[in-house]
């Protein structure tokens, strides 16, 4: 009986993974291999846009390309500011949602709504809100007396970046709040009670008890969000198309333009590959740094 069961188990061990593995290989693994290979090629216009082996030439061109550096800078600014804002706001929202008040269940659902809406579609609705002439953002600013002249939100570099970051924060802050809230609910009541008995004030309890226990959740949320923000495409494509003057162009959008507009396939692949490698390196340095600090 036992031997028969073992045989069944062995056979069953790998079989269930095969279909999923096959699909992931097809849609994720092979394309990653493909894009890396493509990044070493260059398209020759004669002979119908066929990629030819170009070795490291696309890479060298990339690291001399000022537009790439601009896109990189925009991506860093976008990722940094939106993840920072989302984290601060998300933690605050999690604390509010953790309190008990009438209608809390409904409020939680309402807070989650932005997360579920399509980024591209909401980006369009934000470009209506931030419309230079008829946008409600300008009208509200004027009414409360913060701005006399309408702000040209989407046609000036700094306001455009601010509008995009704000829209992204709106859309993704529920995700951070949700993860942090789950972490908050995982803190045992006894721990807080003990801190209270020890005479710690509200701020001290937060700083020395709650925050350290919450940090892992905050970091998980921030890592997921940073990875997504680094690849930001939808929101920029729809709201500004990278403009004005390339001031909001992210690396994903620059790669996209190279592929679909300039038909420079190899270079597009080089941009995507290098930008991803760079993010992976930053993540690696961050992880090692944390490990080392954790060890000492």
């Amino acid at each position: 009986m036992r031997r028969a069961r073992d045989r069944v188990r062995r056979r069953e061990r790998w079989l269930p993974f095969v279909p999923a593995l096959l699909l992931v290989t097809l849609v994720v693994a092979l394309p990653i291999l493909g894009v890396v290979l493509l990044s070493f090629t260059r398209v020759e216009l004669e002979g119908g846009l066929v990629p030819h082996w170009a070795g490291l030439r696309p890479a060298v061109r990339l690291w001399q390309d000022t537009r790439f550096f601009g896109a990189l800078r925009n991506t860093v600014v976008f990722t940094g500011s939106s993840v920072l804002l989302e984290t601060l706001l998300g933690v605050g929202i999690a604390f509010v949602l953790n309190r008990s008040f009438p209608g809390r269940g409904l409020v939680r659902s309402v807070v989650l709504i932005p997360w579920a809406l399509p980024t591209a579609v909401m980006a369009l609705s934000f470009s209506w809100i931030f419309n230079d002439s008829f946008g409600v953002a300008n009208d509200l600013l004027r009414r409360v007396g913060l701005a006399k002249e309408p702000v040209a939100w989407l046609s000036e570099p700094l306001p455009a970046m601010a509008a995009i970051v704000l829209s992204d924060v709106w859309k993704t802050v529920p995700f951070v709040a949700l993860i942090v809230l789950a972490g908050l609910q995982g803190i045992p009541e006894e721990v807080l009670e003990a801190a209270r008995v020890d005479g710690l004030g509200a701020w001290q309890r937060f700083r020395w008890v709650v925050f350290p226990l919450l940090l892992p959740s905050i970091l998980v949320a921030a890592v997921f969000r940073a990875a997504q923000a680094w690849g930001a495409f939808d929101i920029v494509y729809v709201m500004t198309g990278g403009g004005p003057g390339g001031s909001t162009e992210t690396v994903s959008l620059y790669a996209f333009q190279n592929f679909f507009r300039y038909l420079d396939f190899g270079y597009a692949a080089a941009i995507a590959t290098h930008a991803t490698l760079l993010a992976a390196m930053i993540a690696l340095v961050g992880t090692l740094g944390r490990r080392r600090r954790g060890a000492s």
Partner: protein
Amino acid sequence: MTGRRAGLGVAVAALVVWSLAPAVWQVLTALKPDRDITRTPTVYLPDPVTWKHVEALWERKPFGVYLANSAGISGAATLLSLVLAAPAASALGRSPERSRRTILRALVVLTLFPPILLLFPLYEAVRALGGLNRPLALIVPYAALSLPLAIWILERGFGQIPAAVEEAAILDGLGPLSRVVRIQLPLAAPSLVTAAILVFIFSWNEFMLALTFMTRDQAKTVTAGIASVSGSSMFEIPWGQLSAAIVIATLPLVLLVLLFERRIASGLTRGAIKG
């Protein structure tokens, strides 16, 4: 104490306004007559309420077709993703602890790659296979890209089934397939629903692949169909109609959230707590 309660009340109110305001603004815009949409200073409430934009939506653009495409593609992707994720997740629950953890971690890493990295080879492959404008060109990638999340959620669902139940089924002579169909799936049904909702939302919302793979108007999903109008000049955009389109395209998602908030929340936080 009353001061703290008042503070909480203000915070909750601000939270609700912040979360709903952009969507509510689209509803108001969709119901306003054209002359009020482009009036300064801004007219806030629709007066009189007009259904003209909502009606026009079904006449000018194949909006109904967009919706049907989105529903079909998202539904099929959800089904495919669950069918492939379920066996893997159930087997994962019975794997040795170390390989189980390794595989779950590897799945998370997969989700961190930026989609632009996959876009170019996928586009080339789809074009070479003659798949542009075919629903399958989106269904297969959507299912694949949702697999990690689906497996994470289902693994927990299957993991909660006691081993004794499984062994009793083996002793009763049930084969692998009937064990899955008659024992595991019914017991893991709640996590299947959670995974299905999340995969459906992801598929409905995806933009980059839909924008590039679906070039013909009749093949577009609602997300790509609406959002790709932004290329034209601001003054050509009929904002009333567009707002109506945005409202209708996002309505199914709002309903899903209101109905299934708890499931969505538990599905999303599945990974975060256990690390």
